[in-house]
């Protein structure tokens, strides 16, 4: 196989990876930041970084886990930089919790059910907003992306025990919020 042909195959593989995982990476970043523009930018950066390092990807974890790890690191870097650039804090485009709770799939639900669902979503958002960065990441990977604990552990670089502990605390907070205001 010529070198050009090998490059061509790698490019095709990467294209397939982008097509498959881009929406999921975007969704995770959107849920983490609540900012559509920022989520798009970070998703672009994530795939740019992945493309640059595609040759070094050995397949020890799944491509999704690898991409998620890049996305998590980019998000961390972003918030770290933002803390340094304190004057840019006011320029965030993040939507507020009420607006984020407005989104519900248009299923066959009654108005009452939709209102209840919206209220529940709002409460979960409130809890997510108050979680630490790490807890939020673990929580979103588990309950939005439906990842396994081992995958979350790989993506975050934490042990499975730590992931369990973070999830336990986060769910405890959601439970308390739902119990307290019902």
């Amino acid at each position, binding site marked *: 196989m010529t070198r050009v042909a090998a490059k061509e195959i790698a490019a095709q593989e990467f294209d397939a990876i982008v097509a498959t995982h881009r*929406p999921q990476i*975007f*969704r995770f970043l*959107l*849920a983490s930041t609540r900012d*559509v*523009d920022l*989520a*798009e930018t970070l998703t672009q950066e994530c795939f740019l970084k992945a493309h640059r390092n595609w040759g070094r990807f050995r397949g020890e974890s799944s491509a999704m886990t690898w991409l998620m790890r890049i996305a998590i690191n980019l998000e961390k870097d972003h918030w770290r930089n933002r803390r340094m650039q304190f004057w840019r804090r006011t320029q965030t485009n993040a939507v507020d919790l009420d607006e*984020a*709770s407005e*989104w*519900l*799939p248009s299923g066959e639900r009654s108005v009452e059910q939709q209102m209840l*669902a919206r209220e*529940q*979503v709002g*409460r*979960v*958002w409130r809890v997510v907003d108050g979680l630490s960065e790490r807890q939020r990441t673990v929580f*979103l990977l*588990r*309950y*939005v992306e*439906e990842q*396994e*604990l081992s995958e979350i552990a790989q993506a975050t670089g934490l042990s499975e*025990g730590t992931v*369990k*502990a973070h*999830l*336990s*605390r*986060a*769910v*405890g907070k*959601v*439970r308390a919020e*739902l*119990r307290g205001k*019902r």
Partner: protein
Amino acid sequence: MRTRNQFGTRLDGTGLDATGFDATGFDAGDGAGQDVVQDTVLEQALRNFKLSVRAWSEAAYSRPRAAQMTARHRSWRLAAGWAMACVLVAGTVTGGVFERAEQQRAVRAAAVKAQQAQQQLAAARQRQLQDQKLMTAVDTDISQEVPSAMEPLADLMQDGETQ
């Protein structure tokens, strides 16, 4: 029997951690009826949350991109950044120049003041010398002059001396 909730988490009490929750935080203890209701509500809330995020994400992902607007927005930010940087640099330079000019002006004023003081001192010294000379002259004149009442006696003294 092993059961799984819709997140694929076991709810049969296996895999409990030290806090009494299973891996996801669902109560898996002695199965009090209230907890079952709680877990149902919790499950429902988490499912709604997931569906909500997914609906939002899908809508945001498939929306038309406003690349030009973003670029303009960014270029506006960049321009504002540069303008602010220019103002800062100009301010710093102007401040430096002003301070330097101010220092020079102060040095010049101090030099003029010192010169004036020296001149005043020299003038005072001159005046003192003149006064001293005048006083000496006055003293000399006074010592040579004789009061009018003593003049006949002085004449006699002068005659005696000539004789």
